[in-house]
Each structure stands twice: as structure tokens, then as C-alpha cells.
């Protein structure tokens, strides 16, 4: 008896060690950093959690929020306080595991103690589009389509999620869009807009789904209703939609497509549904071609001080810029010396000047086009050429200022700042390639990093005074938060960031946080 007892005890000693959590034997990748308003978030795909760095106070705080298995994509919400994460889930291939469906997690990082809201989205989508008002999200497959797992694939499937409502049988709504042999290449959500004359006067979000030769419109507030497909190849020309801009006050969208000669105006107009048809829409799209002519390469939309809406379209094949009055569809052609393919408006909220550049040809100049007095057809539209001396590869507007950062080479080693008001150009010399940059929330500083150089470079945009701060290790990316703090991410798989209270801070005022992606690692279950 004693022998049996003793043998049992010894056997139990070896057998009763707890099982190791499976998470620690998985391959681990980190999604992010995803900059939020005053936080930065990462997603750990092995430990199935969101780790966020909360920089709302003087002392950084690290929070970890568990989510589902196999995170595939993360994006911030419209207000940049939440993180939306799609998880692929897991099939229970071993006894003891549980099946987990693909889900979209809405993680409220302002209240990380609250459980994230999990919406079952049905398929492992790898992209999310979020409306500007944060009410609607659309999960869809990227152009590369579903991943290798699974059996059948349906790249035209989408999930429409009402983020204001709790998950239910009717939320999200899964929908397969009518296809004409093509698959979606992108989804753009409109700002909230109401359909004039419709019985339902509420503002809604419309999803515009791009695919080869087709744009599909879905009313996101009534995603169970039928979608509307707009064939773009009626003339037999192959067309790929590229860009859409909205005029929400008039429920209008302007679509630019590769292969199309003109800008397509899409007006959502009231169309009472057939009684008894629960899936009928209460709107219909009215189409009109705005005469850009020559195939627009870029478009921009703005309202002038009289609230008249204008569309500016660049047609490089005809070396023209076309200015279209959207109320009357009348247009004015402005001949440009260069084949313009990029239009940048200054200032963005009430533009008075358009910077026209030819990125495709890399010409060493830009044109400044005045947007004032466009309605006066007797007054010519002024163009002013600004010689920059070096090819123009990109034009980036500086927030809150009439300045544009001009990139002169593909490696972003040569830059200049264009003052749109005066037409002056200030060349900038750097130590190397500008791998990452950000403008501070106030728009006072440009902050840049080079991967091989352990420094943060600052440029005071009020007087273009350069300064820099030596870091302890080279940064991979610099992020500017809404509260003015700057974060240099060093790309360490366990997390290493240098946090600055603001641009121009000294080393004494900065702090390095190391290993935060492993926070409470040993207490993970």
C-alpha cells in the first residue's frame, strides 16, 4: 500500500506541472505603431493583445487589452481614440481549443479596462474603411484578396458595421457586391450626407467601392438594401476608378478614373422605393461628365468664399488644368506649360492658391494658380512659375501654414520648403534620406529622422531654423501626437521609444521607455 502511495506521489509530481500557454510557442509579429490622438498602439499577434502607450499625462502609461486570435489589420477610428482590429480567429484543430470566428474588435483606449466590442465579421478581411463621423466601418479584402487559409474565397464580400450599436444578428451586415468579373480595389466612405427630397432626411454614409470598370454605391445605414452598380466602361474603354472627392452639402461625389476622359459627377437624388420592396433604395445616382477632357490625373474640390463649389482637374495629356463650376458644369481651361498631375490646395480649408506640379516628369518647377475670382470669366486665371532648381517628386502641405514641403528625389534626401504666399523657396540640406517625418500638431515644426542616424531633426517652420536632438539609438519612425508630444519609435520588437514633451526638447526633458511590448508578460494567461 505504501509503495503504491509513494509511486503515485512521484508520478503526480512530474505530471501536474501546468501546461505552457500556446501563445508563447507561436510566431510573433507586431502590427504598428498606429498613432492615435494622444496614444500609440501596437498589436501583438502572438499574445493576442493591443499594447498602447498612453501619453495623455506627463508619465507614460502602458496598457494591454486582450483581443482575438491572429490579428491581421489595425486602423484608428475617426476620432483616433479607438483602435479597430480585425482578427482572423482560429479553427480548433486540437482538443481543448475553441473555434473562434473572424471578428472586428473596437478597442476603446480611453477606457482600456472596458472589454473591447467584438463584431463577428464572418470572413478574415484585411482592410477597414471608417467613416469620418466614426459611425460606420466597412471591412473588406485588399486587392491581393483573402489569404491562403480557407477553402472558397469571395473577394467581393464585405461587412458593414454600425460602430454605434452593439453586435447583433443585424450588425454587422455581410454583403457580397454584384460583380462584373472584377474585384474591389478600394473602398471610400463619404462624409455624412442626406439625400435631397428623400423621405428619410437623416444624414447617411455611402460607401463607394472601386473595381475595374465599376463603381458600386452602398447606403451604409441601410446596407441590407440593394447596392447600385455604375458601369464605367459603357463606351468600350477600360476604366479604373482612382480617386473620389465629395461635396456633402449637395450629396455629390466627383470621381476621377484612369482611362476616363472626364471627371464623373455622381449626384445622389431622391427616388422613392417601390412599395413592398424591403431592399429598394430611396435614392438613385445621377451621372454627369464634367468636361475635363484628356483624362484627368488629379482632381481637387473646394468651396469659394461665396460657397460655390469648384472642381479643379489636371489633364497632363493636354497640358491643361480645367476649373469646373459644379452648379452649372461650365468650365474654364487653363493652359499650363507643364503636364500637371498633382494639385495641392492652400490653405486646405479655404484655398486661395493651387500648387500645380508635374511629378511624373520630375520637372524642376511648380506653378502657383490663383483660385480667386474664378467666377469672373472676364478675368484671366493667373499662373506663376516657381523654379525650384531640382526635380519635384512630391509636394506635401504643411498643416496650418502656407508652406509646402517639396521632395526632390525618390530617396527624400533633397528637400525644400515652398512658401506659397511669397513664392519663395528655401532649400534644405539633410544628413541623409528623410525616412520618416511628421509635422507637429501646431504645425510649428517639421520633425524628421534617418534610419541610420541616431538623431531627431527639427525645423522651426516660422523661421526655418534647424536644430536636432541626439538619441541613444537610431529611430525608425517619428510620430507627432495631438498634445504636441513627439515619439521616436526605434523599431525594437519588444518596444523601445524615446518620448519628447515637444519639438525642441532637450535630452534632459526626454525619456526612453524600453520593453513596453512585454508589459506584464509573465502574468499573461
Amino acid at each position, binding site marked *: 500500500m505504501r509503495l503504491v502511495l509513494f509511486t503515485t506521489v512521484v508520478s503526480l509530481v512530474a505530471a501536474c506541472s501546468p501546461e505552457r500557454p500556446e501563445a508563447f510557442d507561436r*510566431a510573433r509579429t507586431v502590427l504598428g505603431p498606429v498613432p492615435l490622438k494622444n496614444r500609440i498602439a501596437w498589436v501583438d499577434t502572438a499574445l493576442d493583445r493591443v499594447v498602447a502607450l498612453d501619453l495623455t499625462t506627463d508619465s507614460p502609461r502602458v496598457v494591454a487589452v486582450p483581443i482575438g486570435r491572429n490579428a491581421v489589420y489595425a486602423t484608428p477610428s475617426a476620432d483616433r481614440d479607438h483602435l479597430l482590429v480585425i482578427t482572423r480567429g482560429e479553427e480548433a484543430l486540437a482538443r481543448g481549443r475553441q473555434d473562434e470566428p473572424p471578428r472586428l474588435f473596437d478597442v476603446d483606449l480611453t477606457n482600456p479596462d472596458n472589454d473591447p466590442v467584438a463584431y463577428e465579421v464572418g470572413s478574415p478581411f484585411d482592410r477597414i474603411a471608417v467613416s469620418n463621423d466614426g459611425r460606420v466601418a466597412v471591412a473588406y479584402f485588399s486587392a491581393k484578396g483573402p489569404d491562403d487559409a480557407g477553402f472558397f474565397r469571395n473577394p467581393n464580400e464585405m461587412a458593414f458595421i454600425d460602430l454605434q450599436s452593439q453586435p447583433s444578428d443585424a450588425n454587422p451586415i455581410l454583403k457580397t457586391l454584384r460583380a462584373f468579373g472584377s474585384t474591389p480595389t478600394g473602398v471610400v466612405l463619404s462624409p455624412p450626407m442626406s439625400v435631397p427630397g428623400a423621405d428619410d432626411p437623416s444624414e447617411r454614409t455611402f460607401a463607394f467601392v472601386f473595381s475595374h470598370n465599376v463603381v458600386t454605391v452602398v447606403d451604409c445605414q441601410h446596407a441590407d438594401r440593394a447596392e447600385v452598380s455604375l458601369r464605367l466602361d459603357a463606351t468600350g474603354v477600360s476604366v479604373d476608378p482612382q480617386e473620389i472627392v465629395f461635396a456633402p452639402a449637395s450629396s455629390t461625389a466627383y470621381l476621377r478614373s484612369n482611362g476616363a476622359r472626364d471627371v464623373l459627377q455622381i449626384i445622389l437624388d431622391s427616388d422613392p422605393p417601390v412599395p413592398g420592396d424591403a431592399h429598394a433604395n430611396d435614392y438613385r445616382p445621377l451621372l454627369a461628365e464634367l468636361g475635363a477632357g484628356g483624362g484627368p490625373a488629379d482632381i481637387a474640390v473646394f468651396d469659394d468664399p461665396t460657397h460655390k463649389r469648384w472642381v479643379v482637374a489636371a489633364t497632363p495629356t493636354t497640358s491643361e488644368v480645367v476649373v469646373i463650376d459644379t452648379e452649372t458644369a461650365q468650365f474654364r481651361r487653363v493652359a499650363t506649360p507643364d503636364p500637371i498631375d498633382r494639385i495641392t490646395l492652400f490653405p486646405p480649408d479655404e484655398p486661395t492658391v493651387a500648387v500645380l506640379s508635374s511629378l511624373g516628369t520630375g520637372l524642376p518647377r511648380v506653378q502657383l494658380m490663383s483660385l480667386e475670382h474664378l467666377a469672373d470669366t472676364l478675368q484671366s486665371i493667373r499662373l506663376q512659375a516657381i523654379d525650384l532648381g531640382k526635380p519635384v517628386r512630391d509636394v506635401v502641405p504643411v498643416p496650418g501654414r502656407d508652406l509646402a514641403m517639396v521632395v526632390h528625389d525618390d530617396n527624400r534626401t533633397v528637400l525644400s520648403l515652398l512658401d506659397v504666399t511669397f513664392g519663395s523657396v528655401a532649400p534644405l540640406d539633410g544628413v541623409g534620406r528623410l525616412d520618416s517625418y511628421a509635422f507637429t500638431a501646431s504645425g510649428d515644426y517639421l520633425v524628421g529622422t534617418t534610419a541610420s542616424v541616431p538623431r531627431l531633426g527639427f525645423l522651426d517652420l516660422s523661421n526655418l531654423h534647424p536644430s536636432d536632438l541626439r538619441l541613444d539609438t537610431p529611430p525608425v519612425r517619428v510620430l507627432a501626437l495631438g498634445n504636441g508630444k513627439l515619439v521616436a519609435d526605434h523599431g525594437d520588437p519588444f518596444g523601445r521609444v524615446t518620448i519628447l514633451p515637444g519639438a525642441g526638447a532637450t535630452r*534632459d526633458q526626454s525619456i526612453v*521607455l524600453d*520593453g513596453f511590448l512585454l*508589459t506584464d508578460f509573465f502574468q499573461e494567461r
Partner: protein
Amino acid sequence: MLRTITLFIAATSAAAYAQPAEQAEANARADAPSWRFDMGSSTRWFRDPSAIIATNDQLASFVMSAEHGLGTVELPRGFALELGVDAMWANGSAAGSMFQTLETSIGTNDLLGGVHASVRALRILAVTARAQAGASHVDLSIAPSGQPQMASVDDGGWARTLAGSVGAEIEPIAMPQVRLGFGMELGYLATSGVEMHASPTNAPDPDRSIETAYQSIGHLDLDGWTLRISAHLSF
């Protein structure tokens, strides 16, 4: 291996209860040696999830101890209880992997002192019990595979430790002044958790670097069942 050990302990324990009382009485009367030195190895099966996260291997330790006899107490039925105080040092290590790309390493140095009691059941066989308390220094390293010098976590700390065990010893050479033998003990070692931080091996000089906060990665707790096999010399 475990089965062999089990059978050994079981057999010796069973034999201990079957001894003639006269023989035990004679042994109890014998003069017990004053000093004893042990040397052996120990295996610990971790019980706490934090340790199992760090490694799914067992902790293997080299153990040395010294013991001074306090005397003998006569028990009923002719048994004699030998008591001693001991001091023990153990050096252990365990290695593991994590996320398929990281190597983990746990190192321990245990410094324990306590009481050791044994009852001589036969001339060459004794059953023993041990209770100890002390401290352990626990080291943890997490580094990319093949690059231990690049560890992102290289930290350590002291833990309070309590240990208790029971076992059996065989002394083929058991003379009045010298005994030589070997034994086996099964026990449990409890430690307080050690808070570990993500401090890297190549951490910069604090005087020449930006103030750095190393994030706590939680408490590493190395509680576990232990099996110790050792040889000893008493004189």
C-alpha cells in the same frame, strides 16, 4: 529514469519499515558523526505559469551542502532521530525558447539553511526529512536565437525561498566515525516572485544616455517540485 528512481525509493522505504528493532536500537546507540558534506544534483519541475512561460524545461541544479550534527534523540520502538543544521548552495539553470525566434535562459543561485532530520531504519538505510529557508538569486535572459549578447531582457533579483523534502539514504559504508552514502529526496521549493524588467544586455551608460525606464515584464516565480540525488560523507 523517473520510474527507476521511484522503485528505488519505494523499495528502500519499504525495507526501512521491515527492519529488526534490535538492530535499530544498536545503531541509535552508536556515536553519530558531527560533520557531513553533500554533493549532488537537483531537478525542479516548475509549477508557476510565469516560469513555464519562460521555459518548458526543468531547472537542473548542482547542489552542495554542509551539515553539523546536533545530536541524537531516542524514539519509541528503538529508533533514533539524528538532527543537524545545514547550509546549502545550489546553482541551477534552465533554457527554453519563445515565439520560435527567442532563446530564454533562467539561472538560479540558492542559499538555504535549515534543519535535517534522519531516522536510521537499518544499518545502511535511513529515512530523512529536511526543512530550509533562505534566498535565491534569479537571473533571466531573453535574447534572439544564437545571439545571447543581444538580450533584450537581462535582469535578475533576489527571492525569499522555503523548501521542504523527504527522502531516503543508503550508506554502504557506515562505520562509527565515518559514513559514506547516497540518497534521494523529493520536496517542494517555494519562492517569492521576482519582478523582472526589460533591461537589455547592452544598456547604455546611464550617465551618457537619456533617462530610461525599463518596463516591468511581471513577476517570475520559480516554485516547483524538486528531486535531489546526492552523495554524502559524514565524519
